[in-house]
């Protein structure tokens, strides 16, 4: 039996440990790259945009002159978009999740629906724009309205909401359902009065994250044909409108230097809106989520 040559191992050990330490440092540096980029991005946008960001900027409509340009129509438009996307996507998403978790039998239809949802999540957002253009704008003749854009966006974020709602419903323990059935409640009564209330924090958290994705999306709206230059506020969901990312895209693609500062100011407004929504999601998650 050959024994390990201890002196040979001992001779190699310092080098092996040194390589270990060096690689640990490299892995750490790579991790810092992401953080560094984020810091530069925030710093650049803040310093570029802060000069243009004032009360007038929030109250003015878009303008050909950079010093008069404002974000009012786009900001209100983004909120209008949410008025359509929030109820439609939550209703469809939570409905699908309840069906899959509580009612669906294990058969090929259920498997097909599940595979379909995970593939839908990987479809590029611009393809959803083509769907919206053909079905909502042209076939259903909704034109370039808030409704057409909102329905397109709802389908885009649907997979995110379904998956979040499924996880939230799955996390509700069986005991609660059994107790409800034991009291004589029917299946739907149990879902409506026991399962959903327990799952609502998780559903809301996922829902808000999905909405914040919809608020930042640009590509599908460009394809749907939402205008970038609007100087009035929409009154109904059938009116045409513009949103924050579209307005930022418009300013970014102009050659004048001044418009880039206006674009940066628009980005600050968009980021503040996103941070606000995400904070609400985090607060809901931490405050109301019960651990069973």
């Amino acid at each position: 039996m050959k024994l390990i040559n201890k002196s040979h191992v001992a001779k190699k050990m310092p080098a092996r440990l040194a390589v270990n330490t060096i690689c640990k440092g490299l892995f750490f540096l790579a991790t810092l790259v992401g953080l560094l980029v984020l810091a530069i991005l925030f710093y650049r946008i803040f310093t570029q945009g802060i000069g243009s960001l004032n009360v007038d900027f929030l109250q003015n409509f878009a303008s050909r002159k950079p010093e008069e340009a404002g974000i009012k129509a786009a900001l209100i438009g983004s909120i209008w978009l949410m008025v359509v996307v929030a109820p439609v996507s939550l209703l469809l998403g939570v409905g699908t999740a309840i069906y899959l978790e509580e009612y669906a039998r294990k058969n090929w239809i259920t498997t097909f629906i599940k595979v379909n949802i995970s593939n839908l999540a990987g479809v590029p957002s611009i393809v959803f724009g083509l769907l919206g253009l053909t079905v909502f704008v042209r076939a259903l003749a909704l034109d370039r309205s808030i409704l057409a854009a909102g329905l397109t966006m709802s389908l885009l974020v649907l997979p995110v909401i379904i998956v979040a709602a499924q996880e939230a419903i799955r996390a509700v323990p069986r005991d609660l359902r059994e107790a409800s059935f034991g009291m004589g409640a029917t299946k739907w009564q149990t879902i409506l009065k026991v399962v959903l209330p327990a799952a609502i924090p998780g559903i809301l958290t996922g829902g808000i994250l999905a909405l914040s994705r919809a608020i930042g999306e640009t590509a599908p709206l460009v394809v749907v044909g939402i205008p970038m230059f609007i100087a009035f506020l929409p009154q109904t969901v059938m009116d045409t409108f513009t949103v924050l990312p579209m307005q930022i895209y418009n300013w970014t693609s102009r050659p004048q230097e001044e418009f880039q500062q206006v674009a940066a100011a628009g980005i600050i407004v968009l980021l503040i809106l996103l941070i606000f929504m995400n904070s609400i999601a985090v607060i809901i998650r931490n405050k109301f989520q019960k651990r069973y």
Partner: protein
Amino acid sequence: MELRKTETYSVQQMILEKKSKKKINMEKVIPKLLFITAAISVFTTIGIILTLIFETFIFFDRVSIVEFFTEAKWLPFASAPSYGIMPLIVGTLKITVIAAVVAVPIGLATAIFLSEYASEKTRRIIKPILEVLAGIPTIVYGFFALTFVTPVLRDLFPSLDMFNALSPGIVVGIMIMPMIASLSEDALVSVPKSIREGAYALGATKLETTIKVVLPAAISGIVASIVLALSRAIGETMIVSVAGGSTPNMSMDVTSSIQTMTAYIVQVSSGDAGYGTTIYYSIYAVGMTLFVFTLVMNLLAQFISRKFREEY
């Protein structure tokens, strides 16, 4: 006699009476309604496929499918238009390769650091920051590429054009990096501790354990995460529209202006290509090609993670 009857009026009878009063039976209607909502996600997919197929057929009625795949020029706006998709595919692949060169090493190293080396406290600080990076709207990244990354690169390489493949490629890489990091980290964390301890007991250092034991065990999840992230890079739109330019070409040069499939769709959509023109239908043919590319990659990712998963 009458009095006795009311006395034995049982709870069961009350329930039965209440049940019979209800006009609609919720227990039967609700599952059907919920099934309809679940079916909408299927209809969305069918809608996407039918839309793309029908409009692409109209396009191929006017432009031959052979020309579409073999012609080396994409000049839809020329007086003698030419519709060969290859330049757009080359542009898209250039962006994807540059993004992969940036995102795969950084993402993988971040995943290894978080799962093998970092303390619980460090992890709790870094993971949310990566989530923020993943949640930034792509138009913001586009602005960043055009107004920061491109000028910095032009200081380093003066021959770089204002619109080029390099800058948006790097920024797309930064955008997909958190996805690779977080999905790969999940794969690494799910490798059981006992396997690592086995390697330590044989005298392996942490690095040797990670490279020779943990990485091979998690490889299916890691490869799947990379394929998924690259599929995202192919479908990415706003960064390449803002910073990549609009010159479709076949050259392998990364310093000059390009056009990707997604950027072409944006260019046509934000211009005034009238409904019914060949240019209008061309965006569906390009969209179809894009859809097939990403679908194949997503299916590949699912196949890899199912087929090669090591079960413990």
